[in-house]
């Protein structure tokens, strides 16, 4: 359990400027300090609290660093097999159409082993939200190459850097799902600064509001650091992300209200 901060003399109602959302439990997160997963969890949880849908939400956790998301989200969660969260969520939503259903997946989960489930859930326009945490690496298993690993980027299975000639190019799955008729809202955000966090939260809110209106699938990619996997300090990892990930994975909306955003 969390060690709680106990200073009654300053913990007074008039001093309260922020409190943790009721949609997160008190369990201490196992994420590495500085990792984006914790922030992303908080934003999802805050949106669910603000929409008043805690009792109507069923989340689907992936296999990856966020496999234990159910320890932190204070609403119903199913833990899915590696890559299969969109299939699991499809069934939940089809059987409980009045509930709110979302998946929370890493890049290995969503864009490698689960590519088929991702594309087909998006293409069917399942009325769910997919939260996609792209950190360009397999965090949980110790920093192996992911489908999203940048060209030249070293990982434990591309120790000399990703050689696109033999290892293939990074996959922009978000651009792919944006082209599918079943997706209603597709965006790429980040959680490395307060401003980025606010924008990501707005996107998540829009995604869940879309689900309320039965608009089809909303896909929110969140670029996040994996400082442990990248072998950088949290601060350096975020800088590396801005310098290297952002030019390749451009931030912003790709599709809004079912319309592609023309970036030219």
């Amino acid at each position, binding site marked *: 359990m969390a060690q709680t901060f106990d200073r009654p003399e300053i913990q007074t109602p008039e001093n309260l400027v922020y409190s943790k959302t009721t949609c997160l439990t008190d369990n201490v997160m196992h994420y590495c300090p500085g990792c984006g997963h914790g922030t992303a969890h908080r934003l999802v949880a805050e949106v669910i609290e603000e929409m008043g849908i805690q009792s109507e*939400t069923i989340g689907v956790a992936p296999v990856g660093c966020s496999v234990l998301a159910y320890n932190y989200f204070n609403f119903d969660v*199913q833990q899915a097999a590696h890559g*299969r969260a969109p*299939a*699991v969520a499809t069934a939940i939503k089809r059987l409980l159409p009045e509930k709110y259903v979302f998946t929370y997946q890493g890049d290995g989960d969503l864009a490698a082993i689960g590519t088929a489930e991702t594309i087909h859930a998006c293409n069917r326009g399942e009325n769910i939200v997919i939260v996609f945490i792209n950190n360009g690496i397999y965090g949980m298993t110790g920093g192996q190459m992911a489908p999203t690993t940048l060209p030249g980027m070293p990982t434990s299975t591309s120790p000399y850097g990703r050689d696109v000639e033999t290892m293939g190019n990074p996959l922009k799955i978000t651009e792919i799902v944006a082209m599918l008729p079943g997706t209603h809202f597709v965006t790429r955000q980040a959680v490395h600064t307060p401003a980025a966090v606010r924008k990501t939260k707005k996107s998540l809110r829009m995604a869940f509001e879309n689900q309320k209106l039965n608009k089809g699938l909303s896909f929110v990619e969140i670029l996040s650091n994996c400082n442990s996997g990248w072998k950088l300090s949290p601060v350096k990892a975020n800088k590396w992300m801005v310098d290297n990930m952002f030019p390749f994975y451009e931030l912003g909306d790709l599709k809004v209200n079912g319309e592609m955003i023309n970036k030219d």
Partner: protein
Amino acid sequence: MKELKLMKGNEAIAEAAIRAGADAYFGYPITPQSEILEYLMMEKPHERTGMVVLQAESEVAAINMVYGGAACGKKVLTSSSSPGISLKQEGISYIAGAELPCVIVNVVRGGPGLGTIQPSQSDYFQSVKGGGHGDYRLLVLAPASVQEMADHVGLGFDLAFKYRNPVLILSDGVIGQMMEKVELAEQTPRLSNEELAEKYPWATLGKRDGEPRHIITSLELESSKQEIHNLKLQAKYKRMNEEEVRYEAIQCDDAEYLMVAFGSSARIAQKVVSMAREKGIKVGLLRPITLYPFPSEIIHKLAGQVKGILSVEMNAGQMIEDVKLAVCGKVKVEHFGRYGGMIPTPTEVFNALEQKIIGG
């Protein structure tokens, strides 16, 4: 009113699922069982009962859809044939690990590999010994008629929910494709979400105010806790062995020789019993209806009475291992089988019985 219909085994499965009050079917086409999905799509169960039917992008997706639906306390089933069932194994292991109820139908075809679309029983080991990773068991039902195809759907759901365990209906291309008359059960109503929440407090139907959230997972990283979970599963399998063994003993009372056969092999073996008895040879047939739990006790008992046992299977000899374990060396046990989609004739089986058991 009970209704009598002439149906294919596969159609009987589909119709029985609707009537059992199933909430959803998820599947992917493969011969020889595609009629299940086709029949369901044609019948529009959504209009009849509100049942969801979805053609998934693969067997992998389908079994994971089953996981998602089952975790909501819903009555969910899927069906496939051998290669597709192989693909589902990871999902089945997750379902067993997370202790979720569901029905899985395997209309077996010959293998290995892409094999053949003709009937076989070569997925016996995969069905009764686990199939996927980890120490788990499925409840395995073996229908030998179109009637049982229908009956085992309802029974399967009852057992699945009783034990919170996946139930596998191990059929084959003969039973799936042949037509027989079936007495169909009356419509069981589907349960509302409120009824489900009441009945299945573990289901993810939304966290209720003041109550803890529902978590469905098969993960427990701490070995000591994972061991406790495994022990709990093993206790459940033991209970199944004590309470759920089902078999049919055909002319076993005075039998001097015994055949053990399930599914379509049992249909053929039953003919062999009459052929032998016409010749004055007292042959009996023990037909396991549950393959897991296996009717070991009755086979052990009969082993004390007969002079020899023939395990008749459409495979290279899989169930014979369980028969031998049950017999425990008491009497001679031999196997007769055809493989790769070949169906033995009663005469072939009778000859094998004479050569391997009666004469041998």
